[in-house]
């Protein structure tokens, strides 16, 4: 177990003592030295026990639960059985959401699949850009999860637990590995919504640091004038006025520290400096006007349009600046109804941009040390749901599709399979904990040993039950 020190206070008191000694003079040294930053450069896992294949993660969350049957899992047999009753042998005793207690009918895949790449991998024709890079990504068709409602399912995917209060994976990764970003948080979250219906809510607990210290919490970047809460100066305060105040605050804090030594004070001073730098670095980061036309065309976005595509481009910029964990949400994949009408829109909003992200990372030599993950929080039923307007599919936790790309991931692989109707993963079934274990493995961390004492237990991202690193999909 890696000890999570009891309070931040101790931790820094300890750091202060061992590194510098504590006292008025030492505080000033700490202030001007690089010893204290937003997040420690060095993480709790040090040295890393495994070879580090990737240094950062970009996690693309398709919120709402995309259908595997209209994305990456071709099921001709389901098409042949369209409209027929779903064989009870598949569904008896199973957890269903809105279809509970209803008559179940097979619903054919709504869009044709096409073969792409050297191996002729079949994916839905709505995703031609992903098709074009299918040889660079690893498709997983045997993903499963435990939860079947959005909120618990997101929590499970993000924290490995359906109970609130656990750290999200971005917080875990920053805790374990530390941050390489000088002037940015180590865990950044961005959310986009296509123009459309009324999508499922996404709670801020999804990027919470849970029982880990607050500095590991994800920071949400928004579009618009104030990308981070309270980042903008108050009206009438320009940067030089703000600088004068921050300077005065730190000068007065130093004076105070001279006669009341407090290990927290050195951190406080460093945090004011960082906050001031963030006020400049974040808007600079988010300003896409410096990107050339080719890049904008590659992603298919305009500066400041707040689209998923723009966020993908920002994700690359964050990655370049050393941000350890970048999570993008694109909402509105919850197609209980209007599957035929709505899913193609989500496909259009995400297909080109996610493929562009992979291409762009590769052309900049960054794909080798980045892990990109594309997944929803659960999959959808092969059965029709017809009680909410035009036909759609219900939530489903026994089968979903996702893909990974980047360092250490076997490109061009199709991993695992569902049964002939796409109801349940049957070959090389993957769990959320397996996915987390694999991610940690690529980051150089042994997931079994990566734990923090919480409420008397060694809490792990990968849970209590044994989880497996999916070695078969690693290169």
């Amino acid at each position, binding site marked *: 177990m890696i000890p999570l020190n009891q309070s931040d206070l101790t931790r820094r008191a300890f750091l202060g003592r061992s590194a510098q000694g504590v006292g008025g003079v030492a505080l000033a040294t700490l202030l001007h030295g690089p010893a204290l930053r937003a997040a420690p450069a060095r993480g709790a896992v040090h040295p890393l026990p495994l070879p580090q294949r990737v240094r950062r993660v970009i996690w693309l969350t398709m919120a709402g639960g995309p259908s595997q049957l209209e994305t990456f899992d071709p099921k001709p047999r389901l098409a042949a059985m369209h409209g027929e009753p779903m064989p009870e042998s598949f569904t008896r005793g199973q957890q269903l959401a809105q279809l509970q207690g209803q008559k179940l009918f097979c619903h054919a895949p709504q869009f044709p699949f096409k073969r792409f790449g050297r191996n002729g991998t079949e994916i839905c024709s709505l995703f031609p850009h992903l098709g074009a890079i299918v040889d660079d990504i690893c498709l997983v068709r045997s993903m499963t999860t435990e939860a079947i409602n959005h909120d618990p399912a997101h929590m499970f995917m993000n924290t490995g637990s359906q109970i609130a209060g656990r750290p999200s994976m971005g917080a875990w990764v920053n805790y374990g590995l530390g941050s390489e970003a000088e002037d940015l948080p180590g865990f950044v979250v961005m959310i986009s919504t296509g123009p459309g219906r009324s999508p499922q809510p996404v709670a801020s607990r999804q990027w919470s640091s849970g029982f880990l210290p*607050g500095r590991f919490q994800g920071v949400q970047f928004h579009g618009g004038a104030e990308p981070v809460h309270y980042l903008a100066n108050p009206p009438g305060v320009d940067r030089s006025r703000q600088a004068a105040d921050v300077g005065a605050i730190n000068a007065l804090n130093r004076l105070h520290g001279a006669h009341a030594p407090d290990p927290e004070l050195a951190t406080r*001073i460093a945090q004011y400096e960082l906050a001031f730098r963030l006020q400049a670095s974040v808007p600079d980061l988010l300003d896409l006007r410096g990107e050339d036309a080719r890049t904008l065309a590659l992603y298919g976005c305009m500066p400041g349009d707040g689209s998923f595509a723009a966020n993908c481009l920002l994700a690359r910029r964050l990655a370049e600046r050393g941000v350890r964990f970048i999570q993008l949400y694109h909402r509105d994949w919850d197609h209980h109804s209007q599957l035929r009408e709505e899913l193609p829109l989500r496909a259009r909003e995400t297909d080109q941009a996610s493929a562009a992200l992979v291409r762009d990372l590769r052309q900049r030599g960054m794909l080798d040390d980045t892990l990109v993950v594309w997944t929803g929080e659960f999959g959808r039923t092969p059965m029709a749901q017809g009680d909410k307007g035009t036909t759609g599919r219900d939530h489903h936790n026994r089968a979903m599709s996702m893909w990974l790309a980047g360092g250490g991931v076997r490109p061009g692989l199709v991993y695992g399979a569902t049964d002939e109707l796409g109801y349940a993963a049957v070959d090389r079934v993957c769990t959320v904990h397996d996915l987390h274990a694999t991610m940690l493995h690529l980051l150089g961390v042994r997931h079994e040993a990566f734990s923090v004492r919480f409420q008397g*237990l060694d809490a792990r991202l990968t849970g209590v039950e044994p989880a497996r690193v999916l070695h078969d999909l690693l290169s």
Partner: protein
Amino acid sequence: MPPLPRIAAALLAALPLPPVRAATADAVEFNRDIRPLLAEHCFACHGPDAANRKGKLRLDVREDAIARGALQPGRPETSELLLRLASLHADEVMPPPEANKPVSPAARALLERWIREGATYQHHWAYDPPRRAVIPAGENGVDHLLDRRLAVGGLTPAPEADRRTLIRRLHADLTGLPPSPAEVAAFVADPAPDAYARLVERLLASPHHGERLALGWLDAVRYADTIGYHSDNPRNVWPYRDWVVRSFHRNQRFDRFTLEQIAGDLLPDASDETRVASGFNRLLLSTEEGGAQPKDYESRMLADRVRAIGTAWLGQTTGCAQCHDHKFDPWTMRDFYALGAFFADVREPAIGRREEGMLVLEPAQRSRLDALLADEAAARTAYESLLPAIDAAQPAWETSAGTEPAPAAGGAAADRARKQVRAALAKAPAQRNERERTLLRDHHRGASAVGAPERAALAAASAARQAYHNSLPKSLVTVSVRPARVVRVQPRGNWMDESGEIVTAALPGFLPGPDFGGRVPDRLDLARWLVSAENPLTARAVVNRLWAQFFGLALSRHPEDLGSQGELPPQQMLLDWLAAEFMASGWDTRHVIRTIVLSRAYRRSSLADPAELAADPENRSLARQGAFRLDAELVRDRALAAGGLLSLQVGGPPVKPYQPAGYWMNLNFPPREYTPDPGEAQYRRGLYVWWQRTFLHPSLLAFDAPSREECVATRSRSNVPQQALVLLNDPTYVEAARGLALRVLAGPEGMAARLGHAWQLALQRAPAPAEQAEAERLLARHAADYRRDPAAAQALLGTGQLPVPAAADPAEVAAWTHLARVLLNLHEFITRS
């Protein structure tokens, strides 16, 4: 327990868990030295969890460990336990390599000594009744117990803090509000020997003391204004929060406080007041998500409640026992579900919208509502007395109306209704069926000229009563329904698995409890047991949590876990004595608080020199006071108070301070607009801020306020750049800074006087010369700058709603606003020391 040498104590505080004590001459003590080692390295497979026990060996029971040869008291060389630890064979060595729990040589040496000395076990400390040390008459128990330890350890306690620090500390801890400069001056100048004690009494009697104590309790019971899952919609429960404030204010006995929350509906003297308290049972997370399965959420809610009792009352982590017997503590799955079964009678929808709750009325509101109900009843009587006359006019109306009923107000439903009326009118009266007759009669009654004024009067009276009803406070309460829901042990916590044994309410088997003689106990029995003399946990858990409020860290470090994975408190005798004293005093919370704050230990300075800081960074020896950042709500309170803006109103509906635009953008079902409250509501204490679980106000979140989705016994205390951004840029703080500036400018004139005033209002002290110089530089810079840029000054002064006097010089106010802002951002400003 023998005292720890000073260096060992420091080591203990700094080392990773579990603490491995350096070998000393002291006898090895099981609870202090051995249990943590066994818990960390062995109990997962050889502990209380029978289902996952390996090799039929359990090491948490001495007889079993001896019977299986793991222990041979006095003979470490033949004890299997040690042989396995030392084994070089991968298939023999314990713990197995894949467990990632290698045992250090120091720990092995300790185990060896323990076995050599006889391998004696002790009960887990927290499961024995707290021991009440004998305190000599006239002595403060806290000091008596601490001083002995400090003396033996050769530690010199810090001197008493200065008066200013003391009054600021007491204010922070007892009311959460800063003292005024005048209060500080009076206290500093008060020569009476009982000045301190009088101050304590004054603060304890303040209604704001109730607010201060409520902060911690509301975390422990996860109080919030919204349901938590998915749509995170509002629910009515704030009268419960006010009940908590009132209970602490009038120092309600903690045992009664417990009874009212868990079983306020079942008490023989149940009242609206105790029913509001029983809202505790409704504070958990609930969902309105489409597709949520009732049984799934029934299961989640049961577990949620068990965890709440574990955290708030017992200081026990029960969550593991939802899926398997606890690995480290004696909680079995049966204990878990049987504890949950106490709440199976609580009436609630498993999924979907909560009910609006019980009306919670002041006498005046009650009489107003009664009057409106009476008005409505009278209007109804008046109208109904006319019904025969109205109905008598129907045939004439039918004739005159022909087949065209009076047009009704729009909408598809109205159109449909009109069509039906038309169809009914078209038939001869004798041919109409029952439904058509009723339809026509009702339609005519609604349109008839006869009785029209009385009809309108009834409608108006009903509307008035309904509007008033809608405006009244309501609160979710507990209503018991029998038969209760069936509760089963859920194998691996899986709610779909209905193969588990059915359990009824029962107390945890490993703790002493009353014999109910075959009767199934109810929530009232549970509550009584929690605060019974035989329960060893509740009093400890409560005083341990309380201690953290007054020293910054609990006596046993993890207040949510007094089990074997928690910490054996370094000051165990003190924790035990406080717990025993708490019970013996009649669960008198204020008595415990008074004892703590009147102690010399509490009054010590928090200043430590580098050597002391290094030797005992966390102050586990309690040789000094703690210095720590204020809780989120109190940071807000202090800034508003310095700005002269703080509203001291106690209680009432939650309020909505300024919040960044779009923060609620990702909420849905329905989408929500956040509208900040106008007027005084903008300046209410942090305690009253709208608690949106999935999107807690970002200024509170930045300072570690918990979302209250789960029960929290202790808050983390981070130090992150977002806190600087909040204090610098949140309009609440910008406005408070202007408030402080205006107060200063309205006071005595002259630079020195003004700076002195500013420092007094913000920090209750005079500025040092160097500080004054820094401030003057800053003021000069900003004043000159804003004189050149009056538009910027106006923009700054326009933040928030506080008006600037017309006669004021905007550049001057702007410059002083900057200085005030600097003061509100100081480490000293947000630190309690």
